[in-house]
């Protein structure tokens, strides 16, 4: 199969316009595709971040009291007792902050009293001894809260302090930079000391309140400040829907001094949390696919046009001895030249675009593997687009050469 590169190139350069237009499309398509896929991969990585808790089997019930007469503590106790009695429940706890919802509290931990020393922002989850079990979180070191360490709600002390907390590994690292955090003391905004009695695997707290996702702290407190609380309930796998319905029906009616707002599985909140990233990934993928499709159509169109306007030339070449595959090779190579020009310019544009995106939108810099992968992919797909026109060119009969119309 003879390639005849130089004459082909000089021929291509003489009728440039169509080729330039297609090369331009390829340039833009490569730059866009590479950067879009890069962004999508980051979003997917974000979406796939593990929550660290058993959100598939956990649901949350929101309860609020009616009026000042509502005895929150006893109602809460009743609810917890009821839930523990339900077969199929693995754990239940009451809290004011619900993981993954963006609804809750964030607070700060300081290494020194008086708001001095290193400061770490954390998501705050109030819970009792059942907290770890309900969340499905395991301890790396230390221990769980003891029943006597759980602070009951006190109306006189809205921002009560706790002597012990449990933190995630991420929080411990942020505070003590790799040194052992177990047993160490940290201080809240009011300068009150808290001892770290346990360190858990990383999990997400309420999230969305401006602190890093896995920096969470468990506070041994019973909620009550807002006259409302959330019940976090974890079921055995596969039993969530039935149990949530049962619990909801019972809790809605068991106490007339309060109202049940809603009962939702945690995975709904997880889906909401990842929604923006998921949607962005979908949009980016869709538009990128469309750009690719249009570019391939452009390549196909140009190749078809070239074949249809050069039938005389094809016939002549065949007449002087070109085989069918020589003709195919001719058009595929011509297409390859155009592709390569577009791809080279596209690489430059992709890098420039990647840099601009990282600066303007504060995104990480483009990973060059994506550029290389994009080049290969576009090259292969671009050549495929010209395959059918090239085959059609090869089927032009040599007798075309002797026609005079």
């Amino acid at each position: 199969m003879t390639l005849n590169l130089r004459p082909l190139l000089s021929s291509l350069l003489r009728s440039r316009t169509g080729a330039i237009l297609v090369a331009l499309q390829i340039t833009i398509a490569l730059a866009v595709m590479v950067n879009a896929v890069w962004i999508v991969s980051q979003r997917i990585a974000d979406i796939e971040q593990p929550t660290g808790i058993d959100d598939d089997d956990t649901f949350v019930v929101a309860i609020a009291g009616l009026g000042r007469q509502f005895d929150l503590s006893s109602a809460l106790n009743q609810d917890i007792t009821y839930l523990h009695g339900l077969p199929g429940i693995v754990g239940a706890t009451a809290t004011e902050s619900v993981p993954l919802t963006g609804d809750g509290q964030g607070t700060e931990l300081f290494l020194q009293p008086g708001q001095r020393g290193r400061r770490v922002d954390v998501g705050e989850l109030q819970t009792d001894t059942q907290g770890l079990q309900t969340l499905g979180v395991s301890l790396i070191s230390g221990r769980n809260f003891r029943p006597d360490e759980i602070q009951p709600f006190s109306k006189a002390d809205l921002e009560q302090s706790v002597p012990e907390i449990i933190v995630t590994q991420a929080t411990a690292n942020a505070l003590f930079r790799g040194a052992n955090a177990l047993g160490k003391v940290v201080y809240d905004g009011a300068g009150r000391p808290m001892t770290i009695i346990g360190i858990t695997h990383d999990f997400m707290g309420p999230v969305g309140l401006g602190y890093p996702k896995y920096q969470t702290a468990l506070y041994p407190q019973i909620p009550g400040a807002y006259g409302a609380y959330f019940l976090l309930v974890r079921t055995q796998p596969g039993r969530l829907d039935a149990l949530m319905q049962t619990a909801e029906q019972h809790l809605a009616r068991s106490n007339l001094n309060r109202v049940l707002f809603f009962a939702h599985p945690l995975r709904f909140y997880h889906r909401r949390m990842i929604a923006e990233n998921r949607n962005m990934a979908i949009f980016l993928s869709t538009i990128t696919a469309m750009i690719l499709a249009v570019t391939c159509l452009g390549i196909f169109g140009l190749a078809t046009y070239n074949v249809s306007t050069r039938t005389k030339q094809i016939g002549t070449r065949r007449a002087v001895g070109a085989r069918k595959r020589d003709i195919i090779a001719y058009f595929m190579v011509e297409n390859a030249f155009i592709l390569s020009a577009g791809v080279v310019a596209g690489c430059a544009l992709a890098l420039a675009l990647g840099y601009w995106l990282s600066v303007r939108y504060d995104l990480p810099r483009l990973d060059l593997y994506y550029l290389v992968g994009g080049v290969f992919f576009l090259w292969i797909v671009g050549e495929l687009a010209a395959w059918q026109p090239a085959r059609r060119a090869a089927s032009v009969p040599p007798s075309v050469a002797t026609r005079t119309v």
Partner: protein
Amino acid sequence: MLKMQDVSKVYRTDLIETHALRNFSLEVKSGQFVSVSGPSGSGKTTFLNVAGLLETFDTGIYHLDGQDVSRLSDDARSRMRNEKIGFIFQSFNLIPDLDIYDNVDVPLRYRRMKAAERNQRISKALELVGLGSRTKHMPSQLSGGQQQRVAIARAIAGDPALILADEPTGNLDSLMARQVMDLLEQINEMGTTIVLVTHDPELARRAQRNIHVVDGVVIDSAPYERRMAVDERAAGNSMPG
């Protein structure tokens, strides 16, 4: 050199069946300069296509340069065209985007020749047709006669055994036409067999032998002068295929 026996070619469409060649028999010996003439629609172009392996034929036997070409594959036919035949077309068929040099180069490239040998052959061919100094020119910059001479150079660059010329002077004025015919005679004197298809009696006369084709059949193969009377009689009987 070229031996056809009872060759037939039929074009079939949904509506019509055209017998372009009917029991066509012809023998051209090596080194001969033969013209093929006949009225329009007589099958001259079909003969040329078949002879030049541009089209297949339905029945009959065709030997080209001693080889039976009836059942050759497409690739084999391409190879034969490349090595054994040189074409000269009525509308020159030069590739407009290539310069003179590259145009003559085209068939040599398909033969996978080394650059040095190609260069030598191209220069020699262009010298022979008198265009050695214009290798970088584009076809659009040349006159019709010059373009046809480039086409001739292309046809002879590969040293073919047979040259098939299809109305080579059809698009030229009389002066250029004479130049082209002189060139063809020159090439024939150097040993190449030439078959010239034309309806121009002036050209037909210049060949050593003339083959007259009517309705896809060889009527006569003798020097031209005796043709006229036969034609008039044949015209009365012939019907469009």
